[in-house]
């Protein structure tokens, strides 16, 4: 589709465009913010940069694997690395995250091997990490449901007297779902220790943000009775500072916060989608100038906090990680067909047991055919 056929975009604003919390400009200039300050060591800074680079590399490898037929589908996080790494690294050990299907960067921060994610998208397992150990829930695919789960989980934590918080991830499109709004209400009324982390990547598949809202999303929080803040989602430092503060506030019993991480989905919605059919190329180009990784690199280089040797070593590490992901993906065993009956119910179920036996007998007929065919050869 040509750019002119797509018309002009009307991004929701109220008066002038509200200010984003920003600590690192797209040009890599460190700036101060009156409310959100961040003390960060050079080591931590390089650590964040490393996270950003590695999660982007894993994402690119997964996209390539999908293109080669090795994954059923992949939902790329391209462009959203800072929103995910900044918020993921803001979590304390005992905080708990409820992701959507796109939070590969948060998963990385929680110590989950990317291969676990690939298993899901390859359809050979259910991810396989232990949510209790990693404090990272399984992916939720039906839009918005996890915000309610997160709220319920947070209230459970509150009742247990735990001093930790929950972070619920969702997209701009999800804000139109009843579930998300109901989660806001419940969390607000019970002062639940939950941070609602909305990655406004400007698109819900083909629908631009203005199909979901007439006001900036973070301003909706006010109507529910808790604070909202809009942060530059491509600024890992600002996201870290804002999310840290919100989680701390939740842990201290001061209730929920809505964080709108203002970012951009640089890639397709998923590998099944072709965004050139519905969005403008110049929009993509303008967001490229706000790349979440380039600005950190510019800052590291200019301030001499990292040298070429550091970048080269990181490049090699990324290559190694990509190779691990590729090799591991290709080596993943297919599921045992009978395992489909294993977890339909937690308790015994006589009908399922009967159907399992029938299915086992059915599968044996294939084995018999295979043996017969082999004998023919």
């Amino acid at each position, binding site marked *: 589709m040509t750019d002119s056929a*797509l018309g002009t975009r009307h991004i929701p604003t109220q008066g002038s465009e509200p200010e984003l919390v920003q600590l690192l400009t797209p040009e890599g200039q460190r700036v101060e913010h009156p409310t959100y300050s961040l003390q960060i060591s050079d080591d931590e800074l390089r650590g964040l940069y490393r996270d950003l680079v590695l999660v982007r590399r894993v994402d690119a490898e997964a996209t390539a694997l999908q293109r080669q037929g090795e994954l*059923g589908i992949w939902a790329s996080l391209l462009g959203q690395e800072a929103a995910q790494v900044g918020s993921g690294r803001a979590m304390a050990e005992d905080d708990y995250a409820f992701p959507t299907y796109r939070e590969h960067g948060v998963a990385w921060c929680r110590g989950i091997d990317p291969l676990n994610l690939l298993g*899901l998208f390859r*359809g*050979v397992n259910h991810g396989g990490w232990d949510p209790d150990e990693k404090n990272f829930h399984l992916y939720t*695919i*039906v*839009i918005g449901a996890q915000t309610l789960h997160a709220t319920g989980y947070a209230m459970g934590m509150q009742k247990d007297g735990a001093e930790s918080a929950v972070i619920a991830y969702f997209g701009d*499109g*999800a804000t*139109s*779902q*009843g*579930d998300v709004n109901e989660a806001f209400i419940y969390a607000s009324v019970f002062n639940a220790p939950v941070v609602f982390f909305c990655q406004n990547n400007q698109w*819900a*598949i*083909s*629908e631009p943000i203005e*199909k*979901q809202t007439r006001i900036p999303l973070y301003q909706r929080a006010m109507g529910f009775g808790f604070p909202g803040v809009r942060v530059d989602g491509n600024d890992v430092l600002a996201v870290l500072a804002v999310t840290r503060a919100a989680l701390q506030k939740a842990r201290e019993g001061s209730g929920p916060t809505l964080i709108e991480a203002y970012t951009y989905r640089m890639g397709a919605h998923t590998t099944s989608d072709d965004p050139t*059919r*519905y969005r403008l190329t110049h929009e993509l180009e303008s967001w490229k100038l706000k790349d979440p990784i380039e600005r950190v690199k510019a800052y590291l280089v200019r301030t001499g906090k990292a040298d070429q040797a550091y970048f080269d070593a990181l490049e090699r590490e990324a290559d190694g990680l990509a190779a691990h992901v590729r090799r591991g993906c290709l080596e993943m065993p*297919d*599921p045992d*067909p009978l395992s*489909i*009956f294993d*977890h*339909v119910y937690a308790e015994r179920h006589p*009908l*399922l047991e009967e*159907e399992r036996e*029938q*299915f086992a007998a059915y*599968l044996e007929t294939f084995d018999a055919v295979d043996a017969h065919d082999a004998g023919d050869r």
Partner: protein
Amino acid sequence: MTGTLSSARTVSFRDALREALHEEMEADESVILLGEDVGRYGGAYAVSRGLLERFGERRVIDTPMSEALIVGAALGAAMVGARPVAEIMYMDFVTLAMDNLVNQAAKVHYMFGGQFNAPLVVRVQQGTGRGAGSQHSQSLEGWFAHVPGLKVVAPSTPADAKGLLKAAIRDNDPVLFIEHKGLYPRKGAAAEVDHVVPLGVADVKRTGTDVTIVTWSNHVHIALEAAERLSADGVSVEVVDMRCLAPLDMTTVLDSAGSTRRVLVLHEACRTGGLGAEIAATVGEQLFGELAAPVRRLTAPDVVLPAHTELERTLIPDVEDVVLAVRDLLSS
């Protein structure tokens, strides 16, 4: 059946649906489309492509992302004279619109004492075949056929899809219109503008004398392929395509069953509480003494569907499974 089939022209299932929408929108200003990604994107399965450009944003509406909103607002519009065609991207997400469909739309005519109609169509896409996983592959038609006040349609061919969608749009009751995701690229004879297939009438897609297969949607094609294979061995299979699941045309089923005396009910949905049970029970009630064998069901087992494509395929009855089931029926 009314209207004409074109012998010269073939068309895909997807294009046939678009023709129906296009023609009904041309003919009747009150027909509007709404849903997620239906406008600029042309629908997740490209059914409404080009309709925004033709009919404009007032009649082709990209909604905020809420299924409750889509069906609820469609119902509201329907009650004041619009004929909305709402699209839900996956049958699985119709669960988020359940109140509006089941408690509201289905009850409007009765609860307002016949003063209001709810002439909306909710198009949904369902089924397996793409390894789309547990929440993007379910076949839930049985739930809705169980709800008085709703009509349920599940066509198998492009011509039926077009004719039934046109009938659904013109119908004064709420209709759930089910499209199997595997059918969109399937080609078949095209239907002309005047082709309207009445709701509630099954179609014998192949005549036969030994066994009746009762099925719908994508499984019609599996049954037809099995019938072809069996005919090589001298077995004559009749295939009844229900097309409409509420109301169910049991007359056609009973006529066929009465003549073949052997019935296989075939569906992709899991077994327990599925529509196959309803059909089998009715055949049993009406033809108990006349049947040569008990009615058989061939369905998916009662499991949660996997994302693994091969495993998914193994769980869903295929041509080979149908051939074996028919042979089994004949030997009993």
